[in-house]
């Protein structure tokens, strides 16, 4: 019997269901001060001196000068990238509405906001460049930029590609996706305090990447990393928003360092929507060449990403354009490929790698092209996909990526079969999205991006205490994924223990090995493998000790049910652990002291690809244009499933976010750079009425690069849904001749398309 593969109830739930979780804002300190930020009301201006309010209620105010932090610098070492600093508090110039220029400290959050409201700053407005078009035509918003492009890269060139297009059927697509918010239910939050005894700045942060937060704070305050400890307690969702370091977190840490007081800050929802990090605002101009059998001959893409005003730490503003250009071919064989990708600087908040990172866009593009090619060539679009999918593995693509085995065609066929009985017609459409998702980027894969901070590997410690229970400590950092459960399952199997006897510890830079945190669907694949290796290493030591005590060979020892079994004898792991610690003289010679081991894991090459096909049925209200989703099917393959209910939960939640992006969510800005969406009344995050039950089917092509066989799967739901919904809506609109290639698809747009069709008919 193994624990891996079981839908074990989550260990996290017991505390969370009773309101006994510990989120950052739940941490309390005596004498705590609360921070609020004074933020720019305009998108672009030169600013002068900050005037603090004359009120005793405010404990202290810091501006850029008095806070005295080094700027944040996120760098890519490539000539096409321009590195630009992000000051912790705006200095001389503000570049988006909501940019912080002062931090206010007061006894409670209400009073801190009173103070923030009263802070004045001299402003000389500048022209705001709030769209990619305006930015490309306007003056650079940073010194050092010659144009408003942080990154302008031609990663794939093909001098002959135009010739291919000249002799082929060409399908063109202009796709746009709106700026959206990751919207974790817990906004960003932190609490910083100076620990006199440890001579350390201790910062509790709602983050996905504790070690990267530590680096950013240490570098900004010129401290050695030893003097900064970052703790991530329960984290109320992240979705990529919290895998970058916010300037507010650094400012709060700096204020605590300067004042010696404990300081807390909780981002409110308006800040979260208008002044944190956004994502997914892209425009793709793509053409694809097909032969008459629907085989893809060439792909030519111009990709523009509105990355906002700053380059985020540690991923930089290159993350969206590079991801889009590199991964565009996706699950398909693309013989020839040319791409240009730009990260365009605008007077809007910076972007973070929000769930899916460019793949919702590129999948929408590829799946749109496949569907359109089918229409143009008179071939069933599912068949067009089938003819172009990668079928032999490993496959090295034109983009230099090597794809490991997956079930691309199988997932497509299965999904198509599941929806075969669904009716189609005017107002009722079916859409598919067949795609792969690179997960578990190892160091080598990330190194191709040329980041100053190159993530990839992961390290785990495993230790058995004298009572025989195990603590596993890793640098991955869960924020809803249930690692305490899945990593305990992985460990329990290796040691013959019950998962209840394994505690997983994360989110403390002082306690865990160095780690890269949780993002990019890496934790099960890489972190889980590190944990398994550490557990195996611990098991080896236990076997060696048990063999000595039971007088058998190590190979004969089996760890099962909390015991080490010999030939006809056994010892409980509790006894063995007790003895190993308290009676070390009985251990075999040469065995190391203690029951504590460490192991690392990394993936070489391109990483591993999960895959899935989403199939969705939509019904359109002929008069309002509203979209209803009567059925949503996912056939997914993430290799070995560690815990099915957690995997299904990730899929469902991911699809919900994808449906949100496809139909509802949009952060709209005025030309002046004023945000028009600043509350949840206007940011239309989907509710239970908009999200249908999701039907999930699994295929299993185990990962070959790790021993768990698990591939990453945290983002696939979000990646596939926009493309599938878009194709389904277009299918339902096929009688109108209108083809929508923009998300979110607004009911009004559909209504107009349908009304146009009516007019033509009558």
């Amino acid at each position, binding site marked *: 019997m193994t624990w891996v593969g079981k839908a074990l*109830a*989550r260990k*996290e*739930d*017991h505390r*969370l*269901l*009773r*309101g*006994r*979780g*510990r*989120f950052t*804002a*739940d941490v309390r300190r005596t004498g705590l001060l609360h921070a609020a930020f004074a933020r720019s009301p305009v998108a672009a201006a030169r600013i002068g001196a900050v005037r603090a309010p004359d009120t005793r209620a405010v404990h202290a105010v810091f501006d850029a000068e008095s806070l005295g932090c080094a700027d944040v610098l996120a760098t890519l070492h490539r000539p096409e990238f321009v590195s630009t600093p992000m000051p912790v508090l705006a200095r001389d110039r503000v570049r988006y509405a909501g940019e912080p220029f002062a931090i206010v400290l007061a006894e409670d*959050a*209400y009073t801190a906001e009173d103070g923030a409201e009263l802070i004045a700053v001299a402003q000389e407005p500048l022209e705001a460049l709030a769209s990619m078009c305006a930015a490309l035509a306007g003056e650079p918003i940073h010194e050092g930029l010659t144009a408003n492009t942080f990154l302008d890269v031609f990663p794939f060139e093909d001098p002959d590609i135009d010739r291919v297009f000249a002799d082929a059927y060409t399908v063109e697509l202009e796709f746009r996706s709106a700026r959206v918010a990751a*919207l*974790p*239910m*817990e*906004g960003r939050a932190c609490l910083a305090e100076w620990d006199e005894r440890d001579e350390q700045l201790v910062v509790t942060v709602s983050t996905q990447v504790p070690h990267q937060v530590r680096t950013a704070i240490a570098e900004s305050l010129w401290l050695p990393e030893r003097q900064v400890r970052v703790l991530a307690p*329960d*984290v*109320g*969702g992240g*979705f990529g928003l919290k895998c970058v370091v916010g300037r507010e977190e650094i400012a709060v840490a700096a204020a605590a360092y300067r004042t010696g007081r404990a300081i807390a800050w*909780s981002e*409110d*929802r308006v800040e979260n929507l208008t002044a944190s990090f956004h994502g997914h605002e892209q425009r793709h101009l793509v053409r694809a060449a097909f032969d008459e059998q629907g085989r893809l001959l060439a792909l030519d893409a111009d990709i523009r990403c509105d990355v906002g005003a700053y380059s985020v730490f540690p991923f930089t503003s290159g993350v969206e354009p590079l991801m889009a250009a590199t991964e565009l071919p996706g699950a398909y064989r693309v013989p020839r490929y040319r791409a240009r990708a730009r990260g365009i600087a605008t007077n809007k908040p910076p972007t973070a790698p929000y769930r899916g990172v460019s793949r919702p866009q590129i999948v929408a593009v590829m799946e749109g092209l496949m569907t359109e090619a089918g229409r143009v060539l008179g071939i069933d679009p599912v068949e067009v996909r089938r003819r172009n999918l990668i079928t032999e593995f490993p496959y090295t693509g034109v983009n230099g990526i090597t794809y490991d085995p997956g079930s691309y065609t199988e997932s497509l066929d299965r999904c198509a079969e599941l929806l075969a009985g669904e009716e189609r017609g005017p107002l009722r459409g079916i859409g598919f999205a067949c795609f792969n998702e690179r997960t578990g980027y190892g160091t080598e894969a990330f190194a191709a991006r040329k980041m100053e901070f190159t993530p990839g590997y992961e390290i785990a410690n495993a230790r058995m205490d004298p009572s025989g229970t195990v603590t596993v400590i890793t640098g991955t950092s869960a*924020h*809803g*994924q*249930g690692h305490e459960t899945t990593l305990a399952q992985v460990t329990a199997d290796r040691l013959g223990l019950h998962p209840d006897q394994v505690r997983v510890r994360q989110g403390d830079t002082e306690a865990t090995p160095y780690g890269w945190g949780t993002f990019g669907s890496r934790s099960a694949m890489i972190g889980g493998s590190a944990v398994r290796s550490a557990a195996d290493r611990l098991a080896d030591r236990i076997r060696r000790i048990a063999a000595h005590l039971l007088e058998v060979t190590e190979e004969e020892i089996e760890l099962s049910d909390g015991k080490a079994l010999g030939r006809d004898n056994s010892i409980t792991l509790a006894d063995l652990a007790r003895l190993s610690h308290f009676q070390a003289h009985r251990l075999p010679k040469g065995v190391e002291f203690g029951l504590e081991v460490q192991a690392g894991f990394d993936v070489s090459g391109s990483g591993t690809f999960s895959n899935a096909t989403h199939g969705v049925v939509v019904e359109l209200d002929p008069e309002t244009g509203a979209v209803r989703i009567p059925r949503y099917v996912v056939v997914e393959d993430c290799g070995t499933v560690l815990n099915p*209910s*957690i995997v*299904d*939960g990730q899929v*469902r*939640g*991911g*699809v*919900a*976010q994808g449906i949100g992006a496809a139909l509802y969510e949009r952060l709209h800005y005025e030309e002046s750079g004023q945000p028009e969406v600043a*509350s*949840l*009344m206007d940011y239309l*995050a989907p*509710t*239970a*009425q*908009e*999200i249908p*039950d*999701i039907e999930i089917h699994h295929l299993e092509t185990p990962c070959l690069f790790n021993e768990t066989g698990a591939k990453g799967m945290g983002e696939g*739901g979000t990646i596939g849904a926009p493309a599938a919904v878009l194709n389904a809506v277009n299918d339902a609109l096929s009688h109108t001749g209108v083809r929508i290639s923009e998300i979110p698809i607004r009911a009004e747009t559909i209504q107009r398309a349908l009304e146009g069709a009516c007019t033509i008919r009558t």
Partner: protein
Amino acid sequence: MHDPHLITITVNGTEHEVLTESRHTLADLLRELGYTGTHLGCEHGICGACTVLVDGVPARGCLVFGVQADGREVRTVEGLADGGELSDLQRAFAEHHGLQCGFCTPGFLMLAEAFLAENPAPTRAEIREVVASNLCRCTGYQGIVDAIEDVAGKRAGAADTGTSRP
């Protein structure tokens, strides 16, 4: 009547006499009293993470001032379990994977608690409509709807056979 106000508020059966400022919301007051299971997700009444029961009626804790709860009985998520023993509703959320990060969960639990008290035998469509009162960004809602449906069914079953609620 000037700040702060001395009020008496009963939370999960425990009476508290506390000084509170007029403008502090009930959610903040509860958190100041140590009931940090009530979370703030938007502070403008949309997300529902701060949902608590005031005299049995569900309320957004961010749209009620603490001072308004003077003399009222408030129930929070901390009041659902009997010590360490989870209630049937809490167990169902765990069984049906009705939570991931857990931040919105207290609000959904209190919403469901109030709803099932009013409507013990809801249809799935009615449950879905009520679940739409709050926002969750992790689960896609299916597990939450499943959990509430399961509890409603089990409670109805228990009532039919005359056994007491588990």
